Structures are given as C-alpha cells and as structure tokens.
C-alpha cells in the first residue's frame, strides 16, 4: 500500500516535470534535444525498488502525460514511447550488470532514448534527415544523462535515513 502511494507520487512528479519541460524547450540547440527531467523519477524508482517499478513509473508517466497534453496516440506519443522503452531496456541491463554507477545508468538511458526517438522518426516520416542530428544528440546525451544522474544521486543522499534502498 505504501509502495503504491510512493509509485503514484513518482508518476505524478514525472508528469509535472515532462509537461513543464515542454514549455521551456531547449530545442533551439538541436531539434529534439531535452534534458529530460522526468527521467529523474524513473532512475529514482530504479534505485529505490528495481527495474520492474521503473518500467511502471516510466510507461505510466508517458501515457498519462500525453493524455493530459492531448497528444495520446499521436506522433509525439509514439516518439516518446519508443525512446522510453529503449532507454528502459538499456537502464535495466546496465543496472543488472552492477558494474555501473548511477551516472553510467542514466547516461545510457539518455543515449538510448535519443537513439529510439531518431529511429522512430525515421520509421514514421520515412525520411532520413533526423540521422544528421544523431551525432550531436549522442554527444549531448552525455551531458543530460550526467545532470539526471547527479540530481538523482542528490535526492537519494538526502532521503537516505528515511527510506531503505536496494544496492546503490
């Protein structure tokens, strides 16, 4: 019961992060670039419980935030879902390997989110212009993944006494 409340809190936070971030867009750097603060919730859930809960948080967040924004089952929803699923897979695998710290896990998540999105754009539009941005997006995903990892580490450090964590 308590876990369910925490999960729904995390999902709600993720939705707010995603919607607020869509207002303050960083897309003028490279089209499609975001820090992806909503990923903080997913990474936090990964280190709080495990990869199953991370999948719940991330996928529910994608569904509900696109429902609230009115883009459910539109192109931007599929883009976000494909990137989300690929980044979930990457993060779960790296977490299971237990050789990567939180930085590595979140950087891999950001990187594979970008790869999934570019792949989905190429599949949907049948045009290959987005490939031109892939190198830049990959380089920038290091930065955004580092930010997310740092933020999540701060959250974990500050709530350490109150909540039991898995292997950090």
């Amino acid at each position, binding site marked *: 019961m308590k876990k369910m409340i925490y999960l729904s809190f995390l999902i709600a936070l993720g939705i707010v992060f995603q919607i607020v971030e869509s207002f303050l867009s960083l897309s003028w750097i490279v089209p499609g670039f975001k820090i992806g603060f909503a990923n903080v919730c997913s990474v936090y859930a990964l280190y709080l419980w495990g990869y199953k809960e991370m999948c719940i948080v991330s996928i529910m967040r994608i569904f509900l935030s696109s429902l609230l924004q009115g883009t459910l089952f539109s192109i931007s929803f599929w883009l976000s879902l494909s990137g989300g699923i690929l980044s979930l897979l990457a993060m779960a695998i790296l977490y299971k390997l237990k050789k990567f710290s939180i930085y*590595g896990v979140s*950087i891999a998540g950001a990187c594979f989110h970008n790869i999934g999105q570019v792949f989905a754009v190429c599949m949907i539009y049948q045009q290959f212009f987005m490939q031109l941005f892939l*190198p830049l997006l*990959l380089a920038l995903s*290091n930065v955004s993944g580092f930010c997310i990892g740092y933020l999540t580490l701060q959250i974990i450090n500050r709530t350490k006494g109150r909540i039991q964590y898995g292997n950090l």
Partner: protein
Amino acid sequence: MTRADKILICIIMLASIVTLIPIFKNKMDSNYVTVKVSNQEVLSLDLSKDGTWDVKGTLGTVTIEIKDRKVRVVQENSPQHLCSKQGFVSSPNVPIVCLPNETVVQIEGSDEEMDTVIQ
C-alpha cells in the same frame, strides 16, 4: 563514477564521432546522374567523372557526356533534337528529357535547390 562509466562515456563519444563520418562522406559525392529509358533506370553515373556513355533509346543510341560536373546529351536520333540543343545541365531540378527516345537524364543529389518560390 566507476571505471565502467568512463568507458561508457568514451564509447558514446566515439559513436557520435563515427556516426558523423558518413554524413560528411555523403555530402562529398552526393551528386550522381541517373538515366532512365521507358521509366527504367539503365545507367547511374558519378557526376565527378568525365566521359561519354551510350544508352539505347527507343529510336537509336543516345550519347551522354559528363564534363566539369555538368551533363548533356551529345547526339541522339529524334525529329527536333530538343535535348541535345538544351546543352549542359548542372541543377538537380532541370532534367533532360528526350521524349521520342523516352529517355530522361537527371542529376540526383541531396542539396536540391528551390525550384520556384511562389509568394
């Protein structure tokens, strides 16, 4: 930060550089010439290589010349010789059409310019 993290960052940076290479390579030799006879592609030529080629049109051979990144039809058999009168063409938007021979010569490239702008 563990060592695996640093290796991962290096791999991603390397991947981003490696994915840059085909983009630059594509820009260098993106232009090539396609020759179609009766809507079927019979020849695909590199625009940077000079030379002449013969294509079998429906009324006889069509001779195509490439010189200085431009292409033209040198000789063909048709009533009005419109396509050989057209001369050299260097834009991807201007095809050379020889209708009696059902032959179309067109430059294809990624850096297509604007055809016309209607305001």
